[in-house]
């Protein structure tokens, strides 16, 4: 007992000071109208939340984040699963896997600069490649219609390899004997994919889905460096919006409410996803 207390002490201290207390305090802040510079701190109940949903900028932040999540998550799932399947067996898999994973080891700040250059309208890689096939690319990062797709492309580039590694681990746990049995029964590669691989990857897929959802709703670094939220707020994702409200305009109460709204959405999504997974695994046992 004494040993346990001692062993948990450092962790408990950090948790209390930098997680538990801030959680309570941010609830308090979210219910107050408080700017960093004015000493007045007025209790406004849920007014901050109402303001977020009523203001075009606040609504836009959540809308753009939803768009970003809905378009980047399926792309990430398909590319990472495809890559994992392609690398399931055979020579050199580890080497290819490492090369494809490498972008995930980079800071989003570094990635943001790599892609700022790649999307440069005149000398950038993407428009160069488009010119090679006879197309004239847009001015990606300066065009409100193209900045979000640009952000999504950079996101997939950075993280597809990361989710691929998780899928690969899931694939490795499928016993080889299942495939041998299926082969003996005369099942072709397509049949094996749909009857063995995909059903048995269900749990892994759900895990990747949950993590990818969390990550896309919390995306910041890439946004901040690549587009800064612009042009015309077209990539002003929630966390970038929160950052600007809090640390550029110092509306700390309002920004805390933005944080809690994000947290509520994420918890709700996680509950839905976990319920779905729970139902799935029950079905399999029957």
């Amino acid at each position, binding site marked *: 007992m004494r040993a346990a207390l001692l062993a948990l002490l450092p962790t408990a201290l950090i948790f209390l000071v930098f997680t538990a207390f801030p959680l309570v305090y941010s609830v308090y802040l979210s219910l107050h109208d408080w700017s960093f510079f004015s000493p007045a701190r007025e209790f406004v109940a849920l007014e901050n939340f109402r303001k977020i949903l009523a203001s075009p900028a606040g609504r836009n932040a959540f809308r753009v984040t939803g768009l970003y999540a809905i378009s980047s998550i399926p792309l990430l799932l398909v590319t990472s699963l495809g890559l994992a399947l392609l690398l399931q067996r055979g020579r050199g898999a580890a080497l290819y896997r490492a090369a494809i994973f490498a972008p995930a080891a980079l800071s989003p*700040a570094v990635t943001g600069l790599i892609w700022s250059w790649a999307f440069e309208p005149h000398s950038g890689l993407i428009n160069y490649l488009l010119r090679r096939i006879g197309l004239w690319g847009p001015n990606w990062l300066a065009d409100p219609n193209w900045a979000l797709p640009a952000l999504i492309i950079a996101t997939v580039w950075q993280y597809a390899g990361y989710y691929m590694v998780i899928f690969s681990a899931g694939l490795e746990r499928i016993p080889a004997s299942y495939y041998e049995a299926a082969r003996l029964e005369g099942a072709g590669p397509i049949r094996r994919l749909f009857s063995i691989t995909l059903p048995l990857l269900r749990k892994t897929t759900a895990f990747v889905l949950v993590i990818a959802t969390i990550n896309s709703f919390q995306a910041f670094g890439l946004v901040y*460096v690549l587009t800064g939220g612009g042009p015309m707020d077209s990539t002003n994702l929630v966390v970038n919006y929160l950052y600007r409200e809090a640390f550029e305009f110092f509306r700390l109460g309002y920004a805390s409410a933005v944080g809690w709204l994000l947290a509520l959405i994420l918890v709700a999504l996680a509950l839905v996803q976990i319920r779905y997974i729970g139902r799935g695994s029950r079905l399999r046992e029957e």
Partner: protein
Amino acid sequence: MNRLGRHLLLSTIVALVSLPFLWMVLASLKEGAEIFREPERWLSTGWQLSNYQRAWRELPLARLYLNSLLVAAVVTLGQLATGALAGYAFARLSFPGRDKLFYLYLGSLALPHQVTLIPSFLILKWLGILDTYYALTVPFLAGPFAAFMMRQAFLEVPQALEDAARIDGCSRFQALFRVFLPLVRPSLVALGLLVFLWQWNSLLWPLVVTQSPGMRTLPVGLAALKSELGPDWPLLLAANTLAALPMLLLFLVAQKAFIQGLAHLEAD
């Protein structure tokens, strides 16, 4: 698909993945105006390192590297120590409500850390340690992920080994240091690498708590350079290439441990 076709396809994918990075490196090796004059000639006529010399001379890169290294190393050591202690308590010591407490702690991962961002900033402000190395490291010296990973590792150590150590007269903590820690070295290495990577790469927190250029970490410095240098692409790209190198080298050396560490996460 035959073997040759598979290798061709995979090589093409790897080439596509590396292209944006290579495009930056190629541009960083060109003479200033050349990168805009002839974008079609992507293999430069004359390689040269002047952008790198200029970046190293004109930008505070050494300081940024040093700050990032210091912060990431301190946080990594801190999390290894606190994570091992907490994981040991949650896996191997008995006290009332142990598992409930653990899952509650782990559950705090579900709340996005943006919720605690503003209050944590205010706490550091009250303590008067904004814009210091304390602000960059102390909040991250312990975390649920480290406790979780070390708990997993300790749970796999056979009870018989612990019993033997206890019979030989080891105290709880002696057993941790002499029996448990040597046995979970792979987990320590994987955890250390992941924490180092996350810390080295993180942007939001260092951006919020640093003000003076001398306290910036590499990601914050890069973000600032982009807005300060504006269109000085050759300099920016050389700096960014230099910034990318340490992590790529570390990954190259330790890729197996990285990938296994990440793959391990999903097993539970």
